[in-house]
């Protein structure tokens, strides 16, 4: 965990608040820095990453966990691609533990997890599918994602559960692009588990040019 964050918001090349429940995307140039702020706390942001000049190379949660031999994403984690290249590096982080094992919520999985009455509630994979469509991609291109600010401890027994977030209001995570990379976020709309404190809220994203 590190809160070391030297960038001045006044010099950001992009500064935007992502409303609750909606998707967002942007191509980061190599060396650019993205700072994501959990404005109200306990708000999961589901994230996908693609090599900007070749979308078939994309984030691999399994390779990332194996290479760092740890179940959680935190400061220093290199998010690896399906070809073993570093897409982005987590360079600062206020909450110390982000998930990449539990995937993104979907209408269909919600029916299994929470009951058939939840089928017609908004979900991250709806956001991802719409946002990826802008880049010529589809549901087939959704791979396992990172869940920033989402707390999913995996116990030695194997137990895996989404529990109350440890991200405080104003908490943040900072990423540096190791290559030109398409970043796709879904500001998670889930209300059936604690990943958003049961109340989805906005987040803020800032981007700085390469140093």
């Amino acid at each position, binding site marked *: 965990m590190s809160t070391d964050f030297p960038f001045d918001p006044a010099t950001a090349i992009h500064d935007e608040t992502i409303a609750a429940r909606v998707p967002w995307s942007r191509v980061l140039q190599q060396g650019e820095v993205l700072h994501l702020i959990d404005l109200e706390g306990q708000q999961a942001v589901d994230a996908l990453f693609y090599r900007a000049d070749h*979308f*078939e190379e*994309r984030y*691999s*949660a*399994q*390779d990332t*966990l*194996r290479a760092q*031999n*740890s*179940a*959680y994403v935190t400061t220093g984690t290199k998010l690896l691609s*399906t070809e*073993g290249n570093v897409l982005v590096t987590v360079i600062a982080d206020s909450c110390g533990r982000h998930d990449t*094992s*539990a*995937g*993104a919520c*979907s*209408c*269909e*999985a*919600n*029916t*299994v*997890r*929470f*009951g*058939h*009455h*939840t089928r*017609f*509630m908004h979900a991250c*994979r709806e956001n991802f599918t719409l946002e990826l469509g802008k880049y010529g991609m*589809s*549901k*087939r*291109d*959704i*791979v*396992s*994602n990172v869940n920033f600010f989402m707390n999913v*401890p*995996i*116990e*030695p*027994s*194997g*137990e*895996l*559960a*989404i529990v109350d977030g440890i991200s405080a209001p104003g908490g943040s995570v900072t990423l540096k692009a190791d290559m030109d990379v398409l970043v796709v976020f879904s500001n998670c709309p889930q*209300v*059936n*588990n*604690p990943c958003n*404190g*049961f*109340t989805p809220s906005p987040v803020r994203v800032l981007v700085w040019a390469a140093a």
Partner: protein
Amino acid sequence: MTLLDSSTPEQHRARYEELKRNAQSRLGRSVPRAEHDVAEITDIVRKETIPDGWYWTTRIARGQRLRIVNPTGRATVSALIWNAADTSERYNAGDTVKIQWNALLGKGDLLFSDMGRVLASIVEDSGTGHDFLLGASTQATNAARYGAGLLRNTRDNFCLAVAKLGLQRRDIGPCISFFAPIKIDTEGAFAWKDDAIKPGDFVELRAEMDLIIVLSNCPHPLDPRTDYAPGSVDAIVWQGPPTPADDLCRTASEEAVRGFENTDALFAGE
């Protein structure tokens, strides 16, 4: 627009905590395990011996079984699974562990697609332990473990297999690695459980819809042994007995019941 869910945050939390308690009460439940007996396998549909380092693809019809046998006790078999009728529906690692509240799955557990449906049930399993989190070998992990050389790896096997199926690299999602006994400590670090695999270990899947499966027989990247010698594995597709109403997998949990309700709806009227 219709407000489809008017529950309060407190009501949502209460519902979630109840589901979590129910899942915790099931965790660690022991299931009876069978020995692998080739004689009990009748109605073999097809069979292949997959040499070490190689891959195999097969179709499996709904209701048929795939038994994977590990004669040496040294092999790991990594798998990708698609709905044969629509390959945009495929194995989803996140949903599989999240729905079942468990990352160390085995007999009695289910493999879920991204569409809230059950692709396959793990109907038998000699208890080795399998990996649902860390993926499989690549050229880089082989080089790190075994040094320079042209040893085969699962990433390349998957790329070759999907090409021959008319699929693309983007159809390769996270995989399952059978016979990969990993453990995780309280800090989240992973390690290999030595001596957990025995010669003759096996796992058996029952297809819950028509499937396409790729199997890759390459050592797991956490397997600490420095000689690349997994030996061959046997893959047997067979008809198997009909699924009873009180089937272990179909009745494993309320989540399992709902997953099968979604799956069976695909076949309503058949």
